């Protein structure tokens, strides 16, 4: 599997034994060379180990010597060479039958992957998804780092992307305000809940009466309930305010209500009155509107035109809400929402639920479809249909598509080298875990494919390979021997050849793109169509998406652009909205359509029939800027106040999008879907701009007008942010190696190089620079260690944490003669010389070593000679 440059990487050296069942005190070293030149060698993080016959078990992390590769090794082509011994170096040559097999070398190559920037936006939500209920907007609560005590729940979730995706750099960018749905000013709210009914009777101590019985059963048409008879419910839980009611039975009352008998409940808070919304877990709303969060995020994404990184826009959802899914992705929009659940699963200590959920949804955003794996459904009875299908399309190319319901991370492999939780410190896990591809393994070493519904999940080789491709690291599953299925026809996701950006251009005569969305109901042959946004200067990502729309397997519906005479100016195929977790009965779509000055209408055509159309407004709106002011408030904060004048001669309602270009070139959305003609913003939340400009776009549904401001006063900019990304412990022995690790991101400089991070100690002063700095000479005592990151403007950010060096415990150090002998062994191995000779030479005592013995021998010989002379003189006759 291709390796990612600068991604945390381990080398696990599997040591076997011949002639004994095992061998204690086995140790070793690992060397790295680039272009033949040694770049260093390291001792393992664990050991000495008990080496075992056959190499031991791969899932036992102490059956191998585990080397964490220093960051300097993690790019380009590198030769790794391991050397192992037991008890002492001399035994290799004096005791073992063969010393040649104590060496092993592999050539590896590290490939740069694009960084991923995660744009986090709290989703404005209410409990019950009702505008009058209490606010339940998630607070990101981004602490400085992941280190205990405390730590950031949001970062624990976001850092799941390191664990599951082939990434070396995940940047976190927070949108400045919670996102709201369209028409929020008119009382519309996001609703991510299960299907909804109402409590109409009394609460009855947790045995409420609700308006409808149909949501309680899977197939209401198959039941004609009798009043007063108790029935079992197919759907098991009710969510009412903050309470969760586990349904035991229900009965139909004479007044037509469903009387619930509970057998368990969770939660507390106020008790509901008649009229309170009730959500029935397991019952899907029709139509589902949970995609609205992603649709709103998509409006932020479509104008965002930083082109040198992958972007993921994440709507953060309060974890207490009764949401239909743990998360949801909308294909082609780089937008997902996730319930921010900061809890670990029960079966495996390493399984963090929120982290896996985000990584799963980000997998969808990268084009991955579901892996068929789970067959339990709501009633926990297998029915031969993958549960994943109910949440979105299955990836027919995946190896598990042919083996369902048998489901494994990978096929059984006698080598079994797969999966190691290299980022465990992000979750403060004391020990690493090896994830096995062996279907017979138990927790915590067992996992299922990330894109399935079984937990815990792990990135399987096929989808990991596809993700490598997505992040810019070439990966061919065929070359890796992964038994995937070639597609019969392009069908999106990983089956699709990615569009060539060079071909991503507008058709002749087009002046931009318009985003249209709607739905098609094939059963009733009806549809709906509305405008979402207009881009007169499409961003690279918009052009890429536009060109990718034409790769559709089977086109039965299309959207055409017509002029006044009814001539077709352009046609765009409509495919099933690639919505993971969406029922398939109606087709929701969002397409980018070429914009022509002479376009008069947009039509959805299916089998020659006009299912819906949208006429182009005769007149475009108009918008002009009033002066933009930058004034300090009583707290010293500068408020930027915007006013604009917009109008539409046709009287169409206008929505406005406000954008900011700190460099006068790259735009980002500050606010979207504004109905009013003014807005206010804190300048301290804006990235630096020497001559920043703003743009307002007024949109009437089919036409838009925009106005770009003159440059305003420079915005001083944002400092970088540093995140300390992992510590093995908070207390170390004196002389121990301490690896200080941090990452940094700057809103203006973006990903920051390691030398922008400097480290200092309250006891020892400056320590050095680097995103990873290993020190072994910290003084005994309590240190306040500080990582300082400095951006190109000289703005800094610091993060500090405490660490103790326990002076009463001394870290043993290797004998210099051992170090020099290993130096010699690696040098000889690299040059093809005889190792035994090199070792003997390195171990042969030098003149300096022999000098004390020579002096002693000289003294002894001298003394003996003197004694002999004295004896002879004494015995000589006078």
């Amino acid at each position, binding site marked *: 599997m291709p390796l990612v440059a600068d991604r945390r990487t381990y080398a696990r050296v599997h040591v076997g034994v011949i002639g004994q069942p095992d061998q204690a005190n086995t140790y070793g070293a690992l060397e790295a060379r680039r272009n033949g030149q040694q770049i260093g060698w390291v001792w393992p993080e664990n050991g000495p180990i008990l080496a075992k016959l056959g190499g031991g078990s791969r899932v036992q992390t102490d059956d191998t010597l585990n080397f964490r590769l220093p960051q300097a090794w993690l790019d380009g082509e590198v030769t790794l060479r391991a050397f192992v011994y037991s008890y002492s170096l001399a035994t290799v040559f004096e005791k073992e039958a063969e010393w040649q097999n104590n060496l092993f070398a592999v050539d590896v190559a590290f490939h740069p992957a694009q960084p991923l920037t995660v744009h986090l936006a709290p989703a404005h939500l209410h409990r019950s998804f009702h505008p009058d209920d209490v606010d339940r907007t998630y607070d990101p609560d*981004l602490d400085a780092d992941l280190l205990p005590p405390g730590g950031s729940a949001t970062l624990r979730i976001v850092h799941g992307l390191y664990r599951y995706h082939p990434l070396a750099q995940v940047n976190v960018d927070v949108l400045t305000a919670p996102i709201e749905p369209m028409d929020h000013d008119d009382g519309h709210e996001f609703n991510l809940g299960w299907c909804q009914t109402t409590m109409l009777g009394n609460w009855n101590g947790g045995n409420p009466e609700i308006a409808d019985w149909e949501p309680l059963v899977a197939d209401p048409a198959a039941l004609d309930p009798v009043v007063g008879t108790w029935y079992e419910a197919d759907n098991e839980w009710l969510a009412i305010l903050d309470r969760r009611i586990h349904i*035991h039975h229900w009965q139909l009352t004479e007044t037509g209500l469903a009387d619930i008998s509970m057998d368990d409940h969770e939660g507390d*808070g106020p008790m509901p009155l008649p009229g309170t919304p009730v959500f029935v877990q397991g019952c899907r709303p029709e139509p589902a509107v949970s995609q609205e969060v992603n649709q709103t995020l998509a409006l932020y994404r479509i104008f965002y035109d930083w082109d040198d990184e992958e972007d993921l826009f994440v709507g953060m959802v309060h974890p207490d809400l009764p949401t239909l899914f743990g998360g949801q992705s909308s294909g082609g929009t780089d937008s997902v929402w996730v319930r921010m659940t900061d809890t670990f699963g029960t079966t495996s200590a390493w399984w963090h639920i929120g982290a896996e959920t985000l990584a799963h949804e980000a997998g969808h955003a990268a084009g991955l479809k579901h892996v068929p794996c789970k067959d339990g459904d709501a009633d926990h009875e297998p029915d031969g249909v993958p549960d994943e299908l109910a949440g979105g399309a299955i990836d027919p190319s995946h190896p598990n598509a042919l083996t369902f319901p048998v489901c494994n991370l990978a096929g059984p492999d006698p080598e079994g080298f797969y999966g190691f939780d290299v980022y465990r410190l992000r979750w403060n896990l004391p020990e690493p875990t090896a994830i096995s591809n062996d279907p017979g393994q138990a927790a915590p070493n067992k996992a299922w494919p990330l894109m399935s519904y079984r937990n815990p999940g792990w990135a399987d080789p096929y989808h990991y390979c596809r993700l490598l491709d997505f992040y810019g690291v070439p990966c061919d599953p065929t070359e890796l021997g992964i038994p995937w299925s070639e597609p019969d026809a392009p069908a999106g996701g990983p089956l699709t050849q990615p569009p060539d950006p060079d071909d991503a251009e507008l058709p002749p005569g087009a002046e931009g793109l318009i985003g249209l969305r709607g739905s098609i109901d094939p059963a009733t042959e009806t549809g709906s169509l509305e405008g979402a946004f207009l881009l007169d200067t499409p961003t690279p990502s918009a052009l890429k998406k536009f060109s990718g729309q034409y790769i559709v397997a089977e086109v039965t519906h299309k959207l055409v652009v017509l002029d006044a005479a009814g001539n077709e100016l352009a046609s765009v195929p409509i495919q099933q909205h690639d919505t993971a977790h969406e029922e398939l009965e109606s087709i929701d779509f969002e397409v980018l359509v070429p914009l022509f000055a002479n376009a008069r209408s947009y039509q959805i055509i299916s089998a020659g029939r006009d299912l819906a159309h949208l006429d182009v407004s005769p007149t475009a709106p108009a918008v002009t800027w009033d002066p933009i002011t930058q004034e300090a408030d009583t707290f010293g904060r500068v408020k930027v106040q915007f006013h604009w004048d917009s109008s539409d001669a046709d009287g169409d309602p206008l929505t406005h999008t406000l954008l900011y270009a700190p460099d006068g070139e790259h735009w980002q959305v500050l606010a979207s879907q504004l109905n009013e003609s003014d807005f206010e913003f804190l300048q301290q939340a804006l990235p630096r701009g020497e001559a920043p400009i703003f743009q307002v776009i007024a949109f009437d549904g089919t036409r838009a007008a925009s106005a770009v401001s003159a440059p305003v006063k420079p915005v001083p900019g944002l400092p970088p942010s540093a995140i300390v990304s992992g510590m093995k412990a908070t207390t170390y022995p004196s002389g121990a190696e301490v690896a200080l690790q941090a990452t940094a991101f700057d809103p203006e400089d973006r990903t920051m190089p390691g030398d922008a991070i400097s480290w200092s100690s309250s006891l020892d002063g400056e320590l050095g620079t680097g995103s990873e700095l290993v020190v072994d000479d910290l003084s005994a005592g309590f240190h306040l260690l500080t990582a300082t990151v400095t951006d190109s403007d000289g703005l800094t950010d610091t993060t500090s944490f405490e660490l103790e060096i326990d002076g009463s415990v001394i870290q043993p150090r290797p004998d210099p003669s051992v170090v020099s002998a290993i130096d010699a062994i690696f040098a000889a191995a690299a040059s093809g010389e005889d190792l035994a000779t090199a070792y003997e030479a390195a171990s042969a005592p030098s003149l300096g070593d022999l000098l004390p013995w020579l002096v002693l021998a000289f003294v002894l010989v001298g003394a003996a000679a003197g004694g002999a002379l004295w004896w002879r003189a004494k015995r000589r006759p006078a």
Partner: protein
Amino acid sequence: MARVGRAWARWAATLVAAALVMLAFPAPTAAGAVFTLLPSSGFAGSTVVAHGEGFPRNQPISVRWDGSLVASGNSGPLRPTKFDVPFVVPSGAALGSHTVIMCVTGSGATGCSGPPETAIFTVVIPAVTPTPTLPPPPTPIPGSSATAAPTFPFPTFPIGAETPTPGPLPIAVVTPAPTPPNQLGEIPEDFPDLWIKAIEVT
């Protein structure tokens, strides 16, 4: 129901009093930092959230009760910073006003690296406040009549302070020092042949 009404009157009065105290003691500074206590009165042993805004980013934060450290946290990377540090009112705290400070942790006499922000917490006698909790559920026997519970207006309830999700516990363990790779014990007579099966790079 009358009993419930009186209880609610006390509850409402407590809320109003708490709101007034909170309004009375926000602590803005010239630098724009704000430190508030939620609530700003309560009994000894109760949990209070120290809420800070506008402090320098990514700094260790200390909360001190009458000078004694009661909690620590971090101001986080967001600008402006906004964070909560929960702490427990010392069990022996006397009734009346107490000074609580929040500051960036430092090595000075006050334990702060700069001027602290101050708020006042009033320790009161524990009040019997009606917590609207679910009564014991009736035995869910189909057909039995359930006991009616008091109901409360929807949706006029304020949401209570949510319990912060605790982070992972700190590891305060001295990293075990591995045996130095010089001479690993007494060499046995029967010595096998070691071999490297593979190097797994992951």
